[in-house]
């Protein structure tokens, strides 16, 4: 029955000039046919299905790209056995994950062990529901979108803990603790950088933020936040925090293979490990999506005359760039030590984010100044702060004896 509805509304869509509209109109036509109460349920089910399909595929592609990318970085071809140029590798992985035996340690806390992957993935899924993929293509337009995103984002720490603890394994618990400490530490700079954007835009809803980034300076430079001094600094802080948040590359200490086997994932195998893996990638996609909406103008085209391209393509293009950056970082940067990681978060990122808010405030109140002067002053401030922090950061890099605070 749904297939029929799709087909009938197709010509509608073609008529519209804008492909975004096309998708929305499609959904509405499907839902339109349904009796009263069920309409809402079905429409939300449709959005959910679309999201899962899109991101599931993206996940598979991402694993492939990652493995191929890493290979290329490490001057090796990467998986090319399954399908042409290894394209079908993800399918193979998926089948492997499914049929592999799911080992659960005897002393493990079965319920918590089982729930952990779920609690990790579910919130990330919820996070997708609020990101505007295209013009009008936002699953739920909450006016407290950012708050919702972080609220559900916070649940991931709990899941990591449950995973680490339920296995009743010292190393997994230690890994979980490290992960939680890292995620909490980096959540604050993350939130503070988003606060700068929210402060400048004046609204928590992501749609508003993207809308605020429409238009172009002098017709050429898009009004993306990144091109504002505070925007750039905010983007840098946000990206570092985002990487740490999703336990990727330089900050992938918790499941650093060389140290604590797989961190809180050691007790998992089979399908649960796959779900964890999926959750991680989804987390990466969500956080990049947020970055895009906040700093890179969401689904806005970089150039005015490129407006005709459907907005969601721009969104997913930027997403791919982010994905590439992640993989690139993973291939090149060495892993950070735990105390460096913590110090960096608290002593470098957090002050930078705070100063960034300060600069944003100045930026806001110097609206009357001529463009370049205003840009220059703020940029100067940020550079000064960055240099000063760098200096203190360099100073503290001498290798002081490691002090254990809590593992007494």
């Amino acid at each position, binding site marked *: 029955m749904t297939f029929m509805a799709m087909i009938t509304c197709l010509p509608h869509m073609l008529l519209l000039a804008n492909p975004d509209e096309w998708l929305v109109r499609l959904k509405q036509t499907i839902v339109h046919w349904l009796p009263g109460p069920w309409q809402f349920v079905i429409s939300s089910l449709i959005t959910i299905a679309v999201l899962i399909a899109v991101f599931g595929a993206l996940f598979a592609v991402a694993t492939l790209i990652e493995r191929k990318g890493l290979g290329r970085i490490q001057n090796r071809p990467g998986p090319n056995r399954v399908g042409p140029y290894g394209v079908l590798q993800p399918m193979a992985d998926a089948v492997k994950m499914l049929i592999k035996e799911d080992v659960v340690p005897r002393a493990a806390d079965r319920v918590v062990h089982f*729930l952990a992957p779920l609690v990790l993935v579910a919130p990330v899924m919820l996070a997708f529901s609020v990101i505007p993929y295209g013009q009008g293509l936002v699953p739920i337009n909450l006016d*407290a979108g950012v708050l919702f995103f972080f*609220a559900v984002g916070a649940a991931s*720490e*709990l899941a990591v803990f*449950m995973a680490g603890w339920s296995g009743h394994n010292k190393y997994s618990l230690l890994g979980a603790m490290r992960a939680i400490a890292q995620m909490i530490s980096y959540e604050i700079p993350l939130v503070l950088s988003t606060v700068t954007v929210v402060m400048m835009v004046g*609204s928590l809803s992501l749609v508003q933020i993207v809308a605020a980034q429409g238009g172009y300076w002098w017709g050429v430079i898009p009004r993306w936040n990144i091109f504002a001094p505070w925007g750039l600094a905010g983007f840098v802080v946000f990206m570092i925090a985002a990487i740490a948040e999703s336990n990727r590359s330089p900050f992938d200490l918790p499941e650093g293979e060389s140290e604590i086997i797989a961190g809180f994932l050691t007790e998992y195998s089979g399908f649960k490990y796959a779900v964890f893996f999926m959750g991680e990638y989804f987390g990466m996609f969500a956080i990049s999506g947020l970055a895009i909406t906040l700093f890179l103008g969401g689904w806005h085209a970089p150039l005015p005359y490129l407006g005709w391209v459907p907005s969601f393509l721009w969104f997913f293009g930027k997403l791919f760039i982010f994905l590439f950056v992640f993989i690139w970082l993973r291939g090149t940067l060495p892993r950070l030590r735990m105390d460096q990681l913590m110090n960096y978060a608290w002593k470098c990122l957090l002050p930078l984010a705070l100063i960034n808010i300060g600069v944003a405030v100045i930026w806001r109140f110097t609206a009357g100044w001529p463009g370049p002067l205003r840009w220059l002053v703020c940029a100067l401030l940020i550079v000064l702060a960055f240099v000063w922090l760098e200096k203190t950061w360099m100073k503290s890099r001498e290798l002081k004896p490691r002090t254990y605070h809590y593992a007494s």
Partner: protein
Amino acid sequence: MQAAFFIIAALIVIGGLAAMLVRKLVHAVLWLMVTLASLAALFLLLGAQFVGFAQILVYVGAVAILIVFAILLTRNSEWAKAGRLASPSWLVGVGIAGLATGCLIASILASSIPPGVPVPPAASVADIGQKLMTEYVLPLEAVGLLLTAAMIGAVIIAMPEDKRG
């Protein structure tokens, strides 16, 4: 709407009971998170969107981890409690709680609140921000100060004596 309320209410009550009765502390925390999350859902149901998300962010995000850390640090997690779960005079405690709730419920039922459901008041984030920054700016500052103090206090209290310097 009715169904959602009842589901959430049931979830809350069951979560609460479970949190109180379950033997393992970690499970208790989890059940607590379930109740709090469903409470947040109830808030959303009641239209207080910002509060709901704040609730989730604060409780499910931070407090849960806090309690878990506390559990780990006080070595309660490894072995299941061999001894009695509740204090010897648990019956008294339950009795008093029962009495209190009984009184509350009785007073609620006896109260003359009109059953009507008025139009949900607007609680957009902008209004809340506006209110926070104008009328409630003093409490906001005070809470900010309080939280900093609480953070520093908690760190100092929890820090082992010899390090306290």
